[in-house]
């Protein structure tokens, strides 16, 4: 097993009359256990030059993954405040990450066709995006291209 910790600091000195300071640390465990998540996609850094929607992680094919406790990190590394990425899951828009924004969320893919996380850049002029999943999913690798059947084969 591995030990992966995640910490959040949420702070503001002027949102309220009093200061806001929230601090949380948790460990990434497999669902229902104290055993650490032991797989990761690694931190991917992508330069997106199209407004075409894409899936940052392969479609999750194994039905057992619906009860897992994966975690996902996505960040928009753009420095242009007008540029954003729209993050969705299936048909549901989670929201927009503007320049410098990140998200951290749980990920338990319940349906292989509608639980895919999607990213849509707002511009085609080039934008760096980072993403990583920490998980214990089964069979999330893409099919080998040799196993696919094409009409002209």
């Amino acid at each position, binding site marked *: 097993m591995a030990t992966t910790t995640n910490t959040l600091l*949420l702070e503001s000195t002027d949102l309220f009359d009093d200061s806001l300071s929230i601090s949380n640390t948790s460990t990434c465990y497999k669902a229902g256990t104290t055993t650490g998540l032991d797989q990761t996609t690694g931190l991917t850094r992508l330069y997106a030059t199209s407004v075409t929607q894409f899936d940052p992680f392969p479609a999750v094919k194994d039905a057992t993954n619906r009860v897992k406790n994966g975690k996902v990190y996505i960040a928009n590394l753009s420095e242009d405040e007008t540029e954003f990425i729209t993050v969705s899951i299936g048909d*549901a828009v989670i929201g*927009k990450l503007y320049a410098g924004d990140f*998200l951290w969320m749980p990920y338990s893919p*319940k349906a292989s066709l509608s639980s895919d996380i999607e990213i849509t850049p707002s511009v085609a002029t080039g934008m760096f995006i980072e993403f990583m999943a920490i998980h214990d999913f089964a069979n999330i690798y893409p099919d080998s291209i040799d196993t696919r059947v094409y009409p002209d084969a």
Partner: protein
Amino acid sequence: MATINATININSTDLTSNPIALSKTMTMTKAGTRTGLEFTSGLVRRKLTSQTTIDLVTVGAQMYGTPTASKANKLYVKNTGSSTADYIEIAIGDSTGDPAPGEELLATAGASFITLGRLYGGEWMLIPFEGTTDNDIIVTPSTSEATTIEWMLFFE
């Protein structure tokens, strides 16, 4: 305007053969600007004592204001428990409707939702909040034992 900073640190010395030490700070700004978000729901604390699915954060007009949809809103949610067995399941969509919601099929407007994942005791999430129609944040506890959730919306 206000300055609201969120910093995430992800660390592991043994998930991969080389250590992971990721740190990222964001300042929550209004969409397309460098002006800070200035409205919030405040830190809301709710205790749930059944496994009934609820709309935790609903879109539209609220007591704390009306978040503008499709902006740079951010949502923080934490399961304050300590159990590694009990969890809350987070989904996005609408938990109401007749017939009953069709889980994982959001295409049917107003009566369906898609699951994001689980928050076990002590776990948290920070996500953008779209806030459009039928895009509520839905929570289902795994237990009827008391489960306390804290959440906070930052919006424009």
